[in-house]
């Protein structure tokens, strides 16, 4: 820690200058890759290298939505990640409330388990998870085929299938965000005094009424934080869509970007950069909103 007000003003100015210099170097390191994506995306002759665009164009962006499947990728991503976030908010809101209010013996073991689940790497879980989903998917496919016949069953599986279907990806993405969200909501409800609920109880409100009229309005800031973190993390995830999706219809943005990049002989950096920027933007906006919760959330888990 550096002194806030050294006694010698000239010494302090020197220290401030070196602070500016160091922070500038770190900031340039952090910012440079963004310049390339931004500049290449509006450059008619974009290349792999950072350069000032000679002719500005929005052609790359137009192409994403007009010629390529960009619209579908964006809508798929928004649908999958949006639904997963919604599920996380509802489940973590309810579960966090229960964890905060219960006095049962399983409270402490449950909270420990949640923390331990958070450290399990998804990459290590992916193989058994894939097997589990595959088995569930085959079983479900069998049932659907028996009822609806082959053709319609395939259409339905696109939505409710566990492998190469929306439902599987949504549920798994939501589950991976649940531990942190439950933790955020539990600590959040710990700070909400029970008086409010007791007042509602006195008025004869049922559990559902209490949740709707008292707890949801009180819980909104916590739900906002939990939802934002779930969205950012699910939006940025690459492994799960990579393994769980294969049909072009279901492609999400990370897969669209990754596969567009693999078309080696026709690499078009302007197009890729524009696509990367489209994919990046929602995450940065969400992060902007989440910023004020960052310290609480991280330090909440770190207070000894």
């Amino acid at each position, binding site marked *: 820690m550096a002194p806030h007000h050294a006694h010698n003003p000239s010494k302090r100015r020197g220290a401030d200058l070196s602070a500016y210099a160091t922070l500038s170097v770190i900031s340039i390191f952090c910012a*440079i890759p963004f310049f390339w994506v931004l500049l290449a995306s509006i450059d008619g002759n974009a290349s792999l290298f950072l350069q000032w665009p000679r002719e500005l164009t929005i052609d790359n962006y137009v192409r994403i939505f007009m010629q390529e499947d960009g619209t579908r990728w964006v809508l798929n991503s928004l649908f999958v990640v949006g639904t997963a976030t919604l599920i996380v908010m509802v489940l973590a809101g309810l579960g966090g409330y229960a964890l905060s209010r219960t006095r049962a013996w399983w409270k402490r073991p449950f909270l420990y388990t949640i923390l331990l689940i958070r450290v399990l790497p998804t990459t290590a879980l992916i193989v*058994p998870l894939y097997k589990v989903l595959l088995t569930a998917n085959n079983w479900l496919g069998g049932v659907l085929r028996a009822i609806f016949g082959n053709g319609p069953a395939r259409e339905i599986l696109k939505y409710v299938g566990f492998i190469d279907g929306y439902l599987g990806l949504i549920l798994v993405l939501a589950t991976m965000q649940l531990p942190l969200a439950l933790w955020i909501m539990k600590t959040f409800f710990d700070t909400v005094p029970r008086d409010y609920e007791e007042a509602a109880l006195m008025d004869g409100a049922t559990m559902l009424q209490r949740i709707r009229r008292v707890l949801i309005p009180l819980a909104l800031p916590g739900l906002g934080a939990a939802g934002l973190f779930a969205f950012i993390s699910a939006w940025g995830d690459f492994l799960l869509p990579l393994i769980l999706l294969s049909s072009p219809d279901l492609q999400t943005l990370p897969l669209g970007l990754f596969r567009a990049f693999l078309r080696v002989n026709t690499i078009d950096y302007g197009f890729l950069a524009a696509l990367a920027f489209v994919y990046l933007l929602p995450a940065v906006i969400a992060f902007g909103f989440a910023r004020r919760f960052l310290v609480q959330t991280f330090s909440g888990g770190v207070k000894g």
Partner: protein
Amino acid sequence: MPWIQLSYERRVAWQLRLILLPSVLLLLAFVIYPAVYSIYLSLTNEALTGAAALKPRFVGTRNYARLFSDAKFWNSLLVTLIFVIGSAVIGQFVLGLVSAVLLRRPLRWKPIFNSIILLPNAVPEVVAGFMWISMLAGGERATLSRIVAFFGIPAADWLQTFPLTMIIIVNTWRGIATAMILLTAGLSAISEEIYEAARMDGATPRQMFTRITLPLIAPTIFLYMLVSTVSTIAIFGFVYALTRGGPGGATELISIYIYNQSFTAFQLGYGSAVAVVALAFSLLIGVVYVRALKVEV
């Protein structure tokens, strides 16, 4: 009315269990059960294609025996270890600490620096990989080559020549913010009076840093190390997008090795054995973490 009181409390207890149930079911189905199931899978010759896909057999500890003599497995452990130490323990930590300490000064541009350093944290994994393919490209026109040319260092094909160092740099870039946020929280808990007193006694800034700041944020540093280690072991996306584990396994992190064994070589049983090792490592660190956290419930 003690009897009514009791039944009311029991009803609430059941309601609380009921609203927690959906979360429990999801975690059981998609985390706990797969984790346990991976131990079983690792004892079979389960595969995605071929004869073993139709009729997987129980092979006992054969996968683990193979693991033990598999040079590529040991390589992936070593690569992961260097990656964790280089990026989480050194890179992110040092730059995060420097940023946190410097940003405690009342600088005019503080919010701008703060935002810029936080920015990489928001970047999706594939985008991070893509951005750095440009930064680290080979040849004299690539950004990194141009920067180092400033210092008289010749251009190189960075991802081919120094692959592991490069992914360490990229991961450092992604994670400075996490370290900075945690350490800022730790620093803000230290009261200004301690520094005031030390200054009275004529302590130099360096002495104040090593004798006051570091010892007082040591618990925060410890927790940061645990958190960042487990999250760094889990990294897959941006490295896969950048190098796919290559060249020649130089960046084949354990997560990428699991993926390649299971979904490129289609050997789910063997991939599971590797995954069980990764799970065991993470759980071990997790237990230390939970004990250090002293959760108040």
